[in-house]
């Protein structure tokens, strides 16, 4: 055991997080879906091992730097992994593995969509890993584009005019977002003469305010922050279930992660309080408006997609809550914890929604009666994921909301507490709508198909992790503390 531990810590895992997914994408395209399926599990398991190894290494040795090409910043590009990056990488690897298992059953070997699903999904995971590791402003732009095009390609796997429109809307939003970000990069480079995130910081002046506004706006579009969320529901709700899970759980978190990095490193000296409060206000709008719309939806997957719009709001409460010294660290931890637990819970929920659609043959919530008996483990999974999304103990979502509440109390910003309470009640309302319907008796004319066990099983495992994040919060928070911007935490 100690041998394994020593080995995990000794290896430089960063190349292992980039090489295998990109190689898998290449081979999957070259050799076709059959070999792609064979390679999927080994590559995804390797990804989880590498992410775990990196997390352990960061925990024991501190933040890791990998100077690409041996040049070092600012001449070359540096990769950087601290606790936050390690956690996001681990989430990507774990959810990626579960979604991979699910997809093996979801896309049968002769499903036409599988031909392009595997290379696109492998590219997507490689792009997200690259984004989490990058410490260079322009390289981050390239990873954003890589991730965006892979995600849009996955949405375009569905056929029909509605799917094409959803993909186009998503593509245009993603391109607009990355161009706004790129203009910010151009201004930073012109002003400071470097692209390496380490060592850059903005002075407080008009140009800096404009840079912050442009880059924040661009990344907020990509994160689907209210009122810029218009592209998310059709794209996430209309895609095949495993794609929805990847997009809703992971892809929006990547742009949020970049926003966090920028705000608390590059922008920090130039940020003012109203800007942070404004982001919080948009977050509050997202929570209320997204939950309200989720309540109106008739289709199961659209409900889950609007729930993502609402849950993104909590992430943005981090910015106002972290702008006062008391409670800043709790806010930081709470926001990141919410990103993690929402990732696992939402992936589980989209995957199980796919299984429910398979079982019932449609997605209309009103006609889901009887699923509780037909798919008991599936409905249990849905309930577990709901517990985390509502923020009930002992889930990861509970820890996240608890930390955010703590931050709000410590900094005296009681209005955000109010928003979180109302948001919690609304999410309970829309999630119970589904659960209540599923446990009604089966209508007479309904036929169910039994979904492959893998569909429900992988979703169930993810919902267990969402729950486990609440039980093993100490270890996770210890990792998050490595290299964090706030370190006045009491043990």
């Amino acid at each position, binding site marked *: 055991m100690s041998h394994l531990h020593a080995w995990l810590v000794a290896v430089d895992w960063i190349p292992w997080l980039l090489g295998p997914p990109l190689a898998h994408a290449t081979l999957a395209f070259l050799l076709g879906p059959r070999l792609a399926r064979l390679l999927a599990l080994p590559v995804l398991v390797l990804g989880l091992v590498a992410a775990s190894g990196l997390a352990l290494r960061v925990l024991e040795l501190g933040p890791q730097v990998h100077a690409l090409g041996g040049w070092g910043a600012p001449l070359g590009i540096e990769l950087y992994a601290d606790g936050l990056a390690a956690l996001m990488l681990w989430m990507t690897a774990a959810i990626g593995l579960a979604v991979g298992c699910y997809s093996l059953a979801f896309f049968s070997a002769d499903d036409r969509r599988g031909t392009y699903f595997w290379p696109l999904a492998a590219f997507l995971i490689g792009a997200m890993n690259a984004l989490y590791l990058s410490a260079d402003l*322009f390289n981050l732009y390239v990873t954003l584009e890589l991730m965006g095009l892979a995600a849009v390609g996955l949405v375009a796997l569905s056929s029909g005019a509605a799917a*094409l429109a959803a993909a*186009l809307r998503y593509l*245009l939003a993603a391109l*607009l977002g990355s*161009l706004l970000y*790129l*203009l910010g990069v151009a201004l930073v*480079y012109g002003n400071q*003469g470097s692209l390496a995130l380490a060592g850059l910081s903005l002075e407080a002046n008009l140009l800096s305010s404009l840079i912050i506004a442009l880059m924040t706006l661009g990344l907020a579009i990509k994160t689907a922050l209210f009122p810029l969320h218009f592209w998310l529901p059709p794209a996430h709700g209309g895609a095949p279930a495993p794609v929805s899970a990847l997009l809703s759980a992971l892809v929006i978190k990547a742009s949020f992660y970049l926003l966090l990095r920028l705000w608390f490193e590059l922008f920090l000296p130039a940020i003012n309080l109203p800007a942070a409060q404004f982001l919080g206000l948009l977050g509050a709008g997202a929570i209320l408006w997204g939950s309200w719309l989720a309540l109106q939806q008739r289709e199961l997957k659209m409900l889950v997609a609007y729930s993502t719009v609402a849950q993104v709001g909590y992430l943005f409460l981090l910015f106002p809550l972290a702008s006062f010294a008391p409670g800043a660290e709790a806010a930081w931890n709470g926001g990141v914890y919410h990103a993690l637990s929402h990732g696992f819970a939402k992936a589980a929920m989209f995957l199980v929604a796919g299984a429910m659609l398979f079982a019932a043959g449609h997605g209309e919530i009103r006609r889901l009666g009887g699923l509780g008996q037909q798919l008991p483990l599936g409905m249990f999974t849905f309930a577990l994921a709901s517990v985390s999304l509502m923020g009930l103990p002992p889930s990861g979502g509970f820890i996240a909301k608890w930390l955010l509440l703590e931050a709000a109390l410590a900094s005296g910003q009681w209005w955000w507490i109010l928003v979180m309470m109302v948001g919690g009640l609304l999410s309970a309302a829309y999630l119970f709508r589904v659960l209540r319907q599923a446990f009604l008796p089966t209508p007479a004319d309904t036929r169910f198909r039994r979904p492959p066990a893998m569909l429900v099983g992988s979703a169930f495992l993810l919902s267990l992790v969402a729950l486990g994040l609440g039980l093993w919060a100490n270890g996770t928070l210890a990792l998050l503390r490595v290299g964090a911007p706030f370190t006045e935490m009491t043990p």
Partner: protein
Amino acid sequence: MTGGLFYAITGVLLFCLGLYGFIQHAHLLRRILAFNIMGSGCFLVLVGLAQRGGQVDPVPHALVLTGIVVAVSATAFALILMRQLYVESGHCTLPGEDEES
């Protein structure tokens, strides 16, 4: 003011012009054109601002070369999505955003 800064300001104006076109047009081909103009504006800022002292900086040249390739990839993909949408629905606009004329 040097030539570099002059082109950087031109780039900023192009970006905002493109942004206006991107938001305001509903026709997808026009939005793709606007996106390309925004991109060109960005590239001018990147090179021009870095060279406002007068000396040549090869780093933004390499970055813009990357940017041009990324832009053509995105343009090609968007165009084909648009054409397929046209084949399947007869429209060149997204649902709910019909061009006012």
